[in-house]
């Protein structure tokens, strides 16, 4: 709404870095919540198994079900001790409804003991990690040549990755050494040049092992790169694409490596999630250890949040996160952080002309910044005229949805929302969440 400063000057300004303030504060362990919702599926089409029923008493760390069935399954553990209240379809932050288990805590937090890994048992280490619920790409990890550990922070407001490397560096090094030992692959830490705080820490960690190196990059990598690599590798396995080195690569987050260490040497199942909580609805931005399945209300309340006025909550950051329709959704695996803000909506006609949507002026800024080398303005135009198939030919599904094109667009065209819309239309689906903000513009 600042009409005085011309558009090009505003674009040059560096965005607000919340994570510059955060690294100095130590992470906090959140107390056991009163209620958790633990999802048993990642998408509604997944197969799953449940081992508990309503009324059962469970202990912390007890296996309550599996994602997938048979040898291809990943165990899911109870994250609090208490009574199973409900089993069935419940809210999920990314896909609307999935099968979940709801547990009411009894406050005692009794742990079920698991044995650490022993070579004398003659079990496969990856089968053991599967039983412990550590989320790795088990189908491919035995045949990889490179393990990439993504320590870059794509979301400007979070710093959970930096923080976990500083606090649990030894565990991460041990977990990585284990993976390198059992796969025979080499490991590469991706670190941004800006992250001066952790470069030295990682150099110390990797000094002991030969096959590990550090790679300094200029720009951060988003999480969706992993999906792209996975899709390409599946295409290569089916013979649809040439095999290149990228196809034998897995990308792992540092917190998973710490979980590998915990499961392998201490016998602790994967029940904790490390996340940042930031935004104007929270008194102090901080990093938290939460139990998996904790409701967002509890997390925001613990961080000193202004619950009744919180109007916009995003799981996974301001750039690539998913806006939430309810605060009664659980924290799931791979939750990097929560962005909770107090928000107002204003009328379109009262907006400054700098913030109203204008026509595409073909400046090409979006093409310059696109990390997937797409032509976002052309894609958006095709989708706007409902030529979805042509958009797919132009590489619609290569879009990472990083949001950089929307950020630089001087005409405020909702490029990312249009691309998401096109993807959903091609899949034959429809989402209210994306339409709501889009309908304020013209279609």
């Amino acid at each position: 709404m600042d009409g005085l400063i011309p558009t090009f000057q505003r674009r040059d300004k560096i965005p607000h870095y919340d994570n510059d303030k955060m690294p100095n504060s130590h992470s906090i362990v959140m107390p056991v919540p009163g209620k958790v919702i633990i999802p048993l599926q990642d998408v509604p089409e997944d197969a799953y198994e449940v081992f508990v029923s309503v009324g059962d008493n469970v202990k912390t760390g007890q296996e309550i079900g599996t994602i997938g069935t048979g040898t291809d399954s990943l165990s899911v553990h109870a994250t609090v001790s208490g009574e199973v209240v409900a089993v069935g379809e419940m809210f999920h932050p990314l896909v609307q409804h999935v099968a979940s288990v709801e547990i009411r805590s009894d406050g005692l937090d009794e742990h079920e003991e698991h044995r650490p890994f022993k070579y004398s048992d003659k079990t496969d280490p990856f089968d053991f990690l599967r039983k412990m619920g550590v989320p790795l790409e088990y189908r491919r990890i035995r045949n990889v040549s490179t393990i990439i550990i993504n320590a870059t922070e794509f979301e400007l407001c979070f710093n959970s990755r930096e923080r976990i490397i500083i606090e649990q560096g030894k565990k991460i090094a041990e977990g990585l050494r284990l993976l390198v030992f059992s796969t025979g692959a080499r490991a590469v830490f991706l670190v941004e040049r800006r992250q001066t705080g952790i470069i030295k820490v990682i150099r110390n960690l990797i000094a002991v092992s030969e096959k590990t190196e550090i790679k300094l990059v200029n720009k951060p990598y988003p999480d969706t790169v992993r999906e792209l690599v996975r899709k390409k590798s599946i295409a290569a396995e089916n013979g649809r694409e040439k095999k290149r080195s990228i196809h034998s690569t897995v990308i792992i987050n540092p917190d998973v490596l710490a979980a590998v260490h915990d499961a392998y040497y201490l016998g602790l199942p994967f029940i904790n999630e490390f996340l940042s909580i930031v935004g104007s609805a929270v008194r102090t931005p901080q990093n938290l250890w939460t139990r998996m399945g904790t409701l967002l209300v509890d997390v925001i309340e613990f961080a000193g949040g202004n619950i009744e006025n919180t109007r916009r909550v995003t799981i996974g950051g301001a750039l690539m996160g998913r806006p939430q329709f309810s605060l009664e959704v659980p924290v799931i695996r791979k939750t990097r952080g929560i962005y909770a803000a107090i928000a107002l909506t204003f009328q379109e006609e009262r907006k400054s002309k700098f913030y109203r949507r204008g026509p595409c002026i073909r400046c090409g800024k979006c093409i310059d910044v696109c990390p997937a080398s797409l032509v976002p303005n052309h894609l958006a135009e095709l989708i706007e005229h409902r030529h979805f198939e042509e958009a797919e030919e132009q590489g619609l599904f290569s879009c990472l949805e990083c949001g950089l094109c929307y950020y630089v667009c001087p005409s405020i065209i909702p490029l990312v929302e249009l691309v998401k819309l096109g993807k959903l239309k091609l899949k034959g689906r429809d989402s209210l969440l994306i339409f709501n903000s889009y309908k304020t513009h013209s279609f």
Partner: protein
Amino acid sequence: MKAIIIYCSKTGNTEKVATAIQSGLGGNADVIRLNLNNDGMLREFCPDFKFDLAAYDLIFFGGWTMVMKMHPFLTAYIQRCENIGGKKVVGFATGGAIFSRSHAKGDFVELIEARGAELLDFHYVTTLLGPLLTKRKLNKAKNFAAGIIKRFKADHPAAS
């Protein structure tokens, strides 16, 4: 009597006027700065922030004039807040040109009437991006707030 000052400021001029008004009220007023980004999200944590104005007797709305109207952040807040009906409302605005006064006031009156609140007074300060915001003008704003308090107490002897 409980008062609240809600304002938005870009360069700091309206903030100065809001501070002057707060000192004119004797310091006992809650202050909310609407520091929003262009998506309408509040940038920083504000401890007093609330949409519910039921607890307040006197409400001050302030903002800078943009294209001869009250600022969109403030209008969005006025349209969104709750329990404002029947409350005493005071407006203040800063702007570059003196002739924006009547336009800004007209816009503000429209907004307040749409919500069913009662407008006590309106104060306009010419700043011209800062250089014209003198101490004299800030004192005037302070006296304006003090005068409002006197009028309010004369109307409501029970409120202390």
